[in-house]
């Protein structure tokens, strides 16, 4: 069994597409109409055949209170690997991205937390050797 897709629940798929590609730098992998929404996934250009991120509508009534409760406590929904947290932080801040946690070094792990504008907080993380280049 393999993990081929994982989800973030977004309040607006168009807005999400713009943020996850335009700001974070992911690329569209699948964009297929399904009912009133789309099966819309993005991948990292550094790993185009890797795990896809599904920009999934938060249409289920339980999704919105769940997301709001996480944001209230500052808890990120998921975490993305970066080579350099400080550099990404500066780059994304320059693009107007809002962070709820500035880069924080904890041992050999460095993290920061940003707002995806679609109702989620996302962690970026670096740990030497975590991801094979």
């Amino acid at each position: 069994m393999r993990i081929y897709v994982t989800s973030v629940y977004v309040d607006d798929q168009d807005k999400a597409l713009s943020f996850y590609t335009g700001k974070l730098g992911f690329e569209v992998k699948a964009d297929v109409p399904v009912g009133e929404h789309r099966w819309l996934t993005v991948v990292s250009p550094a790993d185009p055949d890797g795990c896809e991120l599904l920009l999934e509508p938060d249409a289920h009534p339980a999704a919105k209170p769940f997301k709001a409760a996480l944001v209230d406590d500052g808890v990120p929904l998921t975490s993305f690997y970066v080579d350099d947290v400080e550099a990404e932080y500066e780059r994304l801040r320059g693009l107007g991205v809002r962070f709820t946690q500035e880069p924080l070094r904890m041992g050999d792990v460095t993290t920061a937390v940003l707002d995806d504008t679609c109702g989620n907080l996302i962690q970026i993380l670096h740990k030497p050797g975590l991801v094979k280049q």
Partner: protein
Amino acid sequence: MGESAAEGEVFKALADPTRRVILDELAERDGQTLFEICSRLTMRHGLGLSRQAVSQHLEVLARAGLVTGRREGRYKFHHIDTTPLDRLTDRWRREN
């Protein structure tokens, strides 16, 4: 001169080592989400407390006036306030 109820809350809040670590971390960077405080306690201090437990520590610190919560849109940040410490030990000091 005796001790006020408010001062009692400050001493109670400071008596716990975990709460002092929370203050250390907020003194290093003021204005943290609950998640950041939990991360710091776990990753830097090996204190694997539940989010609920950390929340309760923050409530004790808030009752003592040592931590204040600030809401900014959908986010909530916790700030350190050292004002209650300013005159806390005056009653034991000799006036010059």
